[in-house]
């Protein structure tokens, strides 16, 4: 696929210039999609910028960030709670402040459906881009990667996994727009926000702080103290997943929790994947002492019981400055990376050693190619596929481990939403009518872990159809099992 092989090959830009139409159509579609969500994109970029600026000592541009953020929120966005509001109230004859005067449940549903529709359109757009590239701009009619894609297209179990993971990722990415209410108003500062509601006894619309409303709509099992899934509370607020023990909206809580779990899992896997890949390259290329050193250190880390190592590190670093960043998420990622890279490295060490024996490596060495380039260009691409399999299989294990740690009261600092904490909160009420508090997060975790495992299976079968054999499989299974949380 590299375009330096053939003499008469023209660069990609020239190929596009000769036939610009497919690309133009594709870009136009993309522009429409992005324009619909421009406010959110802009807001995200502003947030990112503010993080970068806050890292610069001295805070040079205090006004710029707040200006950008206010600008971002003033741009209309299709899929926002402002465009399709669901937090209205009943005024005795109809709904006010909701989308088209629909009842809050329907208004919320409209928004959720639109968000997912948009997400799938976006996915379709990306796929369409690949197809267009394949048909109009690529020289080769066929590359090995096409086979991988085709195999994945006929792998239903893997597709099921991909879809579950995609739904989950969208839940995390669009968490602020998907929740019936916001984390800020409902969970963090409920007493600085108010809701209006129809008081049937008084026959009038009244106003109350969110905190007070929450106090009276908690789910605590007995009698009237329960707001189950898919119901309204006494204040006309719709709760798709019911409320938590202290009356906060479960769906908002879980969507934000998904964001945190997923960011921890993905950043852990990306960082430990990099470490594993770099070490695998070095050990496979140099072998000998380098290999032995990494074997011993990875074996030593693996000889420590995973979950207990995580607990111990969590406790030891709990009160330090490290646990301040992102409510402790940074610390969690660092600890998980420390515990997980040996598994990944172990998994790709075999393939890396095999690649290092290939003839083209010898050839590259013999004409004096630098080791760094050999590793990067001639070895890494062949190992990357295996790494992808193992990382996608480990993601589920990390999500379970994060939940397990926060169940024990370690990890993400309250009040930031985390799935394990809500399971622990709901523990006393599992067998009562407030069963939803513990049950729903658990089912979601099961679903997403199944999804990640299925996706891993699909990628494995797609990348290497022969790999589904005994011992190699055993490794993936062991990884997928997680740390016993």
């Amino acid at each position, binding site marked *: 696929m590299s375009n330096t092989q053939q003499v008469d090959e023209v660069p990609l830009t020239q190929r596009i210039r000769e036939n610009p139409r497919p690309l133009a159509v594709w870009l136009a579609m993309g522009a429409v999609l992005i324009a619909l969500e421009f406010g959110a994109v802009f807001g995200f970029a502003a947030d990112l910028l503010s993080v970068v600026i806050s890292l610069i000592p001295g805070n040079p541009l205090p006004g710029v960030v707040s200006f950008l953020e206010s600008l971002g929120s003033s741009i209309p966005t299709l899929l926002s709670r402002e465009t399709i509001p669901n937090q209205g109230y009943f005024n005795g004859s109809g709904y006010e402040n909701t989308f088209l005067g629909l009842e809050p449940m329907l208004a919320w549903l409209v928004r959720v459906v639109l968000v997912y529709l948009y997400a799938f359109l976006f996915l379709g757009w990306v796929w369409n881009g690949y197809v267009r590239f394949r048909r109009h701009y690529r020289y080769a009619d066929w590359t090995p990667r096409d086979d991988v894609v085709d195999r994945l297209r006929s792998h239903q179990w893997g597709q099921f996994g991909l879809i579950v993971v995609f739904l989950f990722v969208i839940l995390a990415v669009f968490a602020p727009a998907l929740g019936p209410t916001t984390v800020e108003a409902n969970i963090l500062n409920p007493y600085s926000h108010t809701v209006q509601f129809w008081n049937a006894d008084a026959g009038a619309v009244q106003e109350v702080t969110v905190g007070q409303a929450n106090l009276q709509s908690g789910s605590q099992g007995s009698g009237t103290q329960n707001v189950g899934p898919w119901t309204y509370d006494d204040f006309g607020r719709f709760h798709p997943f019911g409320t938590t023990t202290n009356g906060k909206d479960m769906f908002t809580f879980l969507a934000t929790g998904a964001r945190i779990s997923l960011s921890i899992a993905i950043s852990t896997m990306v960082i430990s994947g990099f470490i594993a890949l770099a070490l695998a390259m070095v050990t496979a290329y140099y072998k000998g002492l380098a290999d032995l050193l990494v*074997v*011993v250190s990875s074996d030593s880390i693996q000889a420590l019981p995973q*979950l207990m190592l995580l*607990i111990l590190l969590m406790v030891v670093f709990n009160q330090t400055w490290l646990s301040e960043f992102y409510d402790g998420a940074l610390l969690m990622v660092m600890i998980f990376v420390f515990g997980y890279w040996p598994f990944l490295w172990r998994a790709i060490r075999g393939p890396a050693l095999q690649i290092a024996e290939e003839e083209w490596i010898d050839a590259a060495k013999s004409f004096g190619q630098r080791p760094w380039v050999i590793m990067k260009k001639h070895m890494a691409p062949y190992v990357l596929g295996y790494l992808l399999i193992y990382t996608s299989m480990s993601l589920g294990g990390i999500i379970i481990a994060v939940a397990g740690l926060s169940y024990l009261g370690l990890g993400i600092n309250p009040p930031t939403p985390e799935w394990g904490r809500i399971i622990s909160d709901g523990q006393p009420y599992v067998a009562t009518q407030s069963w939803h508090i513990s049950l729903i997060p658990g089912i979601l975790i099961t679903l997403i872990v199944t999804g990640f495992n299925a996706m891993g299976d699909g990628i494995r079968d797609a990348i290497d159809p022969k790999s589904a*054999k005994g011992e190699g499989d055993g490794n993936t299974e*062991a990884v997928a099992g997680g740390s*016993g*949380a």
Partner: protein
Amino acid sequence: MSRWQYFLRRLLLSIPVVIFGTTITFMIIRLGPLDPAAAILGPGQASGPRAEELRRQLGLTQPLWEQYFDFMLDMVTFNLGNSWVISSGTPAYELILIYAPRTIWLGFWSVLIALFVGIPLGFYAGLNPNTFSDYTASFGGIVWRAMPNFWLAIILVSVLSQSEQLIGWDWKTWLITTPVVTPPRLGFMTEPLALITNPSESWPQLLGAIKQIAPAAIVLGSSSMGNEMRIGRTAVLETINSNYVETAKAKGVSNRTLVWKHVFRNALIPLVPIITGEAFLLIGGSVLVETVFAINGIGYLFFQAAIQGDLPLVGSLMFIFILILVGTNILQDFLYTVIDPRVGYDES
């Protein structure tokens, strides 16, 4: 390299692993920001003459390398030291003796349940591929494995505690009356002969202990059960489609001999790492499962020691875990060496 040379090399390699693993533990508990003096005296008293005195007594004022050598020497000679916080002054060895039997009992049953449910189910699914029962078993195994242990434990505890109201069947009084949570009574372990000499009293006790541990064991064994099932299925499928089974079939070997002699033995090989890998899942998972089921076993002890800053106990427990896990790895290599003649021929 011959098989036994390979095994010997693995054996030798485990020595630096134990040493290095213990070193990591030392680094975490002594170099980390956790202050043992503050943990013993309580919050807000980390400075002052009493804390200084305590530090001197505990040997924390010595140079680090001296502390390190003392620690390693103590560990290697099994001088596990005393607990500082949890049960001040009690030797760690004694605490382990008190707490460990419950975890061993739990681990024993969860391994047993996983083995005797997971492997037969997997083999059954592999022998009847692409049937309805295969799909049911496979899908069940996948979902079963994806469920977080602690969540499963919570659900099970809640349902069993109120099984009368929920499903009309009372778990607590079924067969023998036992509470759902709280540790099982393992008095019979100290005098196993009582099972013969005094059967009327000891057998119900044994039964009660088994019944009490069963839910926790099912939860703890769940993920390995799912693994064993899936691996078992693939392994059987693979051996069934291999040439030597075809040959055996062609020369007229009976179906029963074929399955037992040619398929099962070979299908067991890939299961070895999964079975030994259970040790990892069990030790790690014991923390959460024991917390939910209120079984004060060794995982619970470790968790309490860790959150209360009982450093010597944490270090000693970690060392024991390392020994167990490295021992299991050696066992795995041994089993491989015995079962699989190909071991040592591929270097990876």
